[in-house]
């Protein structure tokens, strides 16, 4: 056997960890978020206070949880526009059933079950009937929100029966983390759910067949079919996963707000997609990370928070978030052009 050939094949391209790092979009978005964080700490007395950071962390957790699910869908080359509607439907299911006196132990699985059913419906139409994801989930956006209205008769629900304290604690509570030398830190529950979901999803994306098949389908769907990847089942499961994330966020958000109206989550799908794209997910499929989605969501919330704190009209928010989406995609274009040359 030719020893030089074996060496050539066995050689790992030793890229310096720093050069690997600067090639990651997640890194640059983290830098942007960090830069915003530092400059806000300097520019505003309020930003770095424990109470404000607590609010920022809780607010962005809802978007970030769904953005993780959305990223999984985007990696397969799909899109889910129905997440905001699934969020309100899940919230309304738990609100109405607990309002009627149901135990939280039944209401939570029921709300998540309804979310999964919506995701399965999306997935079946996309995988087996071949309807484009954009169309199916656009329809579902309308259907799920309408179902939430029918369910509640468009009322506001604010009493959640005997288990009300448990629901409010689930979404609005926090865990106190005692650290040496500094004041104990309060970590909002939604953030804890987010971190657990982030760790699990990151591991699943990298180390399981399910995770790798998401990337394979997004990279080349025909090749995935030809090599025996169960593409149809994968598609159904990924829309179910995304809907489950939206349903979970819905339950937590109701718990935090202590009330639910049918307007909850309106337009949220666009913020969620923005978070995924800013975090490096490629809408043409095959690329994306869970961590990127979370940092993208954090960046959006920091921008929103900073405009409020600095006394700038919130009307500017869209301009900032929109610019970040475009910059993120431009950055990706430049990078892939470098790689091709």
């Amino acid at each position, binding site marked *: 056997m030719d020893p030089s050939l074996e060496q050539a094949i066995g050689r790992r391209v030793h890229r310096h960890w720093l050069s690997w790092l600067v090639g990651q979009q997640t890194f640059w978005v983290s830098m942007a978020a960090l830069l915003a964080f530092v400059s806000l700490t300097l520019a505003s007395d309020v930003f770095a206070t424990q109470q404000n950071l607590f609010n920022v962390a809780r607010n962005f957790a809802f978007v970030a949880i769904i953005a993780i699910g959305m990223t999984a869908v985007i990696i397969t080359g799909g899109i889910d526009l129905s997440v905001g509607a699934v969020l309100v439907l899940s919230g309304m299911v738990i609100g109405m059933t607990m309002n009627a006196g149901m135990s939280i132990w039944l209401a939570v699985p029921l709300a998540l079950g309804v979310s999964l059913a919506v995701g399965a419906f999306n997935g079946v139409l996309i995988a087996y009937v071949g309807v484009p994801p954009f169309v199916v989930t656009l329809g579902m956006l309308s259907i799920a929100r309408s179902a939430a209205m029918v369910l509640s008769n468009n009322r506001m629900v604010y009493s959640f029966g005997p288990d009300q304290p448990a629901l409010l604690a689930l979404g609005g509570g926090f865990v106190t983390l005692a650290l040496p030398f500094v004041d104990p830190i309060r970590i909002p529950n939604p953030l804890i759910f987010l971190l657990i979901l982030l760790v699990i999803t990151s591991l699943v994306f990298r180390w399981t067949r399910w995770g790798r098949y998401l990337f394979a389908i997004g990279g080349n769907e025909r090749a995935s079919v*030809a090599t025996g990847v169960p593409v149809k089942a994968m598609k159904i499961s990924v829309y179910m996963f995304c809907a489950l994330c939206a349903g979970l966020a819905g339950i937590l958000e109701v718990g935090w707000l202590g009330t639910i109206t049918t307007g909850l989550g309106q337009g949220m799908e666009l913020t969620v997609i923005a978070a995924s794209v800013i975090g490096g997910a490629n809408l043409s499929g095959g690329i994306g990370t869970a961590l990127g989605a979370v940092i993208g969501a954090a960046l959006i919330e920091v921008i929103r928070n900073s405009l409020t704190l600095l006394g700038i009209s919130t009307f500017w928010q869209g301009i900032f978030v929109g610019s970040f989406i475009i910059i993120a995609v431009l950055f990706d274009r430049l990078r892939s052009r470098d790689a091709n040359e």
Partner: protein
Amino acid sequence: MAILELSNVSKHFGAIQALTAVSLTLRAGEVVGLMGDNGAGKSTLVKIIAGNFPPSSGTMSMLGSAVRFHKPSDARSQGVEIVYQDLALCDNLSAAENVFLGREVMRGFGPVRWIDYRTMYQRAGELFTELKSETRPRDLVRRMSGGQRQAVAIARTRLSDPKIVLMDEPTAAISVRQVAEVLSLIRRLRDHHIAVVLISHRMPDVFSVADRVVVLRRGEKVADKPVAQTSPEEITGLITGAIATA
């Protein structure tokens, strides 16, 4: 002994007769060039062997026993692998991940199982060494040359220790230097006693690598002879119909 034997295989799609009474024998370690004009029935023949659809009439046998494939996985389980014209690779995955796509190596204990990247990289490296292709298992396919991409697609067929590899126009869209690389990959397969069916429009490739050339015209086999006993001129004549049969 014949690995694959087709006798009087015909295929029609409604009123269209795509293949008429084609008989063909494949032996181990033999490269057969399958030639013919567009619509001559090359793809139909290959798809029958690969199990995409069964023949309308005629029989197939492998190693002496009759077989009937209804879907590609039937053919695969009998040791028939196909390299698609577009190679069926995922650009965003590494070479090793592409080789093992759909057949990942897993490890773990109990119900907790995860992908064994280390074994996959090692095994893919061995396959590339066997194929004498300078392809690194960890590299993304996106960054690879046409020859390396072919090596990845061919290494995939070697995973299961196949008996027959069908290759659909592997040299159609790559550079001259890479064509040489692919032809040497085909010779490696032959060295491992695998029967290779090479579909190609390129006369020089067939003449440099094939042992035997089969010509189809309008769904009928018009020639089946060793390369040494024919010439590009004769084959061209057979393909176009200037020469009736040989």
